[in-house]
């Protein structure tokens, strides 16, 4: 095992982490500000990817495709919020889970009805293909590097918005005491719609970015949704900073675990057992991480007590 391989894997973990952050940011905002569990967040991820694939096919432009993913996912988010979720704020979490689970099924079968059961084609543009040579002779995919940079830029933008803008102040205030800010004259229902649309747009954007190097198919959002929930539980529900740190932790644990655990076991067991045990343990690693965090910080790393 060389140092170069380790650095490359760390970059891979970082890339996976910032993608998870885009998913988890919306989820944690919606939960933190509105107190709503939104299982349909994965469907918004899928909608972003499908919108991008359809737009890329129609226009041939990758940037237009990304724009389409943002717009369509945000629009779907507004639609969901106004038609369904608005009625659920005062209800029990169980009702929210049931309703948003129904939304998953509706969106999945609706997408199949529109686009068919076969995966769609979505590829990166020429100018992001291939690899770049980083310092120390590390060969790395240009597209993945771009994802890392874009993800970090979005994260910085979000931090700025939450910390420095009027909307951000309202969002933070809404988290603390929604009745009070409603009493102070803030249009809370419009704020909720905005937060929901923002979260949806980020999820859709992640779907398009990731769909480009993975497969765009029905049901692609649910595995990511589970990871995003792990991220916000580790980071502390409602905290953007927590979501960011949590996402990087999960991304790095998952990627490095998959690579290092089988090697570590090979020092003790014979190769066949090491591979099999290492692979099984690697798929558990992030849940072990989550359990560990919850033992010491039951509210997550940055959760408000």
């Amino acid at each position, binding site marked *: 095992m060389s140092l170069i391989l380790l650095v490359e894997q760390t970059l891979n973990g970082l890339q996976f982490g910032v993608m998870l952050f885009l998913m988890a940011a919306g989820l944690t905002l919606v939960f933190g500000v509105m107190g709503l569990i939104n299982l349909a967040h994965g469907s918004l991820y899928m909608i972003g990817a499908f919108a991008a694939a359809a737009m890329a096919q129609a226009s041939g432009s990758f940037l237009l495709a990304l724009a389409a993913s943002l717009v369509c996912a945000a629009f779907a988010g507004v639609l969901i919020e106004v038609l369904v979720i608005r009625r659920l704020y005062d209800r029990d979490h169980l009702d929210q889970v049931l309703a948003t689970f129904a939304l998953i099924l509706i969106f999945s079968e609706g997408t199949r009805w529109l686009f068919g059961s076969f995966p769609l084609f979505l590829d990166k543009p020429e100018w992001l293909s291939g690899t770049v040579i980083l310092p120390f002779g590390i060969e790395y*995919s240009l597209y993945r590097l771009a994802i890392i940079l874009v993800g970090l830029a979005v994260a910085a933008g979000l931090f700025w918005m939450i910390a420095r803008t009027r909307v951000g102040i309202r969002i933070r205030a809404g988290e603390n005491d929604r009745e009070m800010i409603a009493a102070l004259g803030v249009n809370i229902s419009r704020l909720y719609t905005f937060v929901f649309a923002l979260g949806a747009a980020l999820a859709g954007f992640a779907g398009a970015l990731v769909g480009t190097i993975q497969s765009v*198919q029905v049901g692609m959002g649910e595995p990511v949704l589970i990871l995003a929930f792990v991220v916000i539980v580790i980071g502390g529900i409602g905290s953007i900073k927590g979501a960011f740190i949590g996402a990087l932790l999960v991304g790095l644990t998952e990627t490095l675990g998959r690579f290092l655990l089988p090697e570590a076991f090979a020092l003790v067991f014979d190769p066949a057992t090491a591979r099999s045990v290492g*692979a099984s343990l690697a798929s558990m690693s992030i849940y072990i991480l989550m359990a560990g965090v919850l033992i010491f910080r039951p509210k997550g790393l940055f959760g408000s007590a």
Partner: protein
Amino acid sequence: MKLKSIILAATMATAATGVTAEGVKVGMITTLSGGGAGLGIDVRDGFMLAVAQSGRDDIEVVIEDDQRKPDVAVQLSDKMIQSEKVDILTGIIWSNLAMAVVPGAVAQGKIYLSPNAGPSALAGQACHQNYFNVAWQNDNLHEAAGAYANDAGHTNSFILAPNYPAGKDALTGFKRFFEGDLAGEIYTKLGQTDYAAEIAQIRASGADSVFFFLPGGMGISFLKQYADSGVDLPVVGPAFSFDQGILQAVGDAALGVKNTSQWSKDIDNATNKAFVESFQDEYGRLPSLYASQGFDTANLMISAMEKADISDQEAFRAALKEADFSSTRGDFAFAANNHPVQDIYVREVIKEGDVYTNKIIGVALEDRSNAFLDACKM
């Protein structure tokens, strides 16, 4: 729509005459929703095409969606056996679902014709006279990939598959025939979509070739990321990641990749030509290997119906075992454990106009049976 009316017509014909003893009632449990739906839809369409082409009005097919869940599949099979009273079950795509349904169904005296899944247990210890596999034993295509890797002069391969029974069968099958060394062997998580970590390991391993078994969306992700990684080693895989439904989503990243399959749309025989043409006419897309398997399964059943009555199960089984139908694959026979003996080809991914598809470039294994004949005591 056409299909529905055919099924309806078949149903009404049986109902009108009041004769149910002569006809055959088929229960098809397959995956029609969720991530793996493309496979089930192809099997169903191939099967129904053959039923329609036979012109028989005594075949009734009940189709249900298993959602790729073993528990749902078991419920459906109970329902089909107990309340629908079907004679033959078929349709299951995934090996874990087949393991949940098949042993129970054949023990209750139903005939099961597998259009896809061929787990090693059902070929070996748990083989049964009522279970026929019309596709392949799970290991077959991977064995062929191993044989092809030898022919292509690969001596140091990096191999990977998901960490579940069919994935382990795949690597075992490949290693059974591959004579070179292994530069690395990885089990990935089932359903994994990001392969950056694995590709980095391939880059660092010093391998001269890569073998992977990653069916469905996993394969699309892997191929796209592999093409973009700058790793430039030849790739070999079974047809599951290169079927007609998937190739369009992979695009250029798949061009030139060698894959092994028991079927290809350019196999040169009259049955296959007619099948490819009529499938395209009926459904407006090219058939995949899954569609060919569904088509062959229905034709096998119809050939047995012509020779024996389903009520005489012993005669019907014997008629099935003769495999006296013209397969889209050309030569087709059953080995002692009711699994196919057939040629397995090497195909290359090419582009025909705007459509990505496969072309045969050679035979990897001739008249390949399977490795579990001795374990099966029938």
